[in-house]
């Protein structure tokens, strides 16, 4: 499928610079919006994947090596994506709208996600609904740690995504202490909006069946640092105020 992309080039001539000057971000690119929504890789915006530079035999070998595992991975991803077990984690007002998606108007059971598990050990989706205060942040982190991989997190509402209405001393944005896959804006987001966010996550899971979130989000080094581990140079202790 041809991805139509046009780029407005600076006029060629003596006065034109050899390459675009600093301000690449100012270059105007017209990208097909539909393709962008479908997740097509866009030059300059999407980081290159390992198979982007392969050609000919290398590419063929790459593909044949992966065809079997890819199909199996896709099947597993399909199963995982269609059967999230959300953890019952309601913090504040967004929790009421999260309860609404379980209710009958926007029914989350038709997608297969109605099994809200109370124990984080049995859940794989943490819907952070509500404002995360500084007293609650270690508790949320602990619950996220207790979940077994693969696990995903949706930050529902403005408060945990981006401090929301209250940007003050008492709140912590969720991305500060745990990786979040999908942010759902709104205060509170409508149940349909949350549903859209969950389905977006489902699409993400179906597309890319990686396990291990620390690899997925390049989060190596964000493990909890305890005692002698602090000597490791790439370790970042997000809870230590002195670090």
């Amino acid at each position, binding site marked *: 499928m041809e991805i139509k992309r046009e780029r407005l080039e600076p006029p060629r001539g003596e006065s034109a610079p050899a390459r675009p000057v600093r301000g690449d971000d100012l270059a105007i690119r017209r990208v097909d919006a539909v393709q962008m929504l479908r997740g097509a890789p866009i030059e300059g915006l999407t980081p290159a994947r390992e198979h982007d530079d392969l050609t000919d035999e290398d590419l063929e070998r790459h593909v044949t090596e992966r065809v079997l595992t890819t199909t199996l991975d896709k099947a597993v991803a399909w199963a995982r994506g269609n059967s999230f077990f959300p953890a019952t984690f309601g913090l504040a007002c967004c929790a009421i709208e999260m309860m609404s998606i379980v209710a009958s108007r926007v029914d989350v059971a038709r997608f297969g996600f109605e099994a809200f598990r109370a124990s984080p050990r049995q859940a794989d989706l943490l819907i952070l609904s509500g404002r995360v205060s500084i007293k609650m942040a270690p508790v949320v982190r602990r619950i996220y740690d207790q979940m077994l991989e693969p696990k995903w997190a949706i930050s529902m509402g403005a408060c945990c995504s981006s401090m929301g209405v209250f940007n003050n001393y008492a709140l*912590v944005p969720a991305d500060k202490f745990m990786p979040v896959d999908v942010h759902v804006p709104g205060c509170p987001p409508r149940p349909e909006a949350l549903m859209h966010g969950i389905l977006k996550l489902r699409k993400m899971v179906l597309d890319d069946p990686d396990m291990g979130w620390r690899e997925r989000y390049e989060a190596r080094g964000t493990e909890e640092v305890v005692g002698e581990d602090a000597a490791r140079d790439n370790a970042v202790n997000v809870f230590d105020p002195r670090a």
Partner: protein
Amino acid sequence: MPDATGLELLAQELREKDPDSVVDTLHFRGKAALSVAPGAIRGVLQALREHGYTFMASLHGVDYYPDEPRLGVQYELLDMQRVDRITVKLRVPTDAPEVDSVTPDWPTADHQERELYDMFGVVFRGHPDLRRILMPEDYEGYPQRRDFPVGGEPVLFTYNEQRYGGGV
């Protein structure tokens, strides 16, 4: 609400019991308020209880920065029989923010005095369990004071949405 004359009579009665207790009376927008000295609060509340104000609706604090004494504590009393409300106010400076706790007489003051301690730093002598209630136990600072900054954090995002595609 006791009207202005009723308030003055009440204040006079309290002054007869304890001359230094009532510092000022105020009748504003139809509501009566008594300003009392911090040391006399328990006696005043007891006297008001005998007058019929048996329900303490609220106990809250104000920071009057930059007026000194800075920290104010207000007690809202309610007389259910006559549907009357009266406010009792007192003020303490920040360098000696101590007030007698009224929790032994009014059990409803328990959590509310803890909240005042947490948010303003007012120490209630005689409170059974004066700890921080809303902030973490080892938090430093009294957030609701006016010279405490509102705070806030720059927001970070886990940049992964473009990589893994959009659309449903």
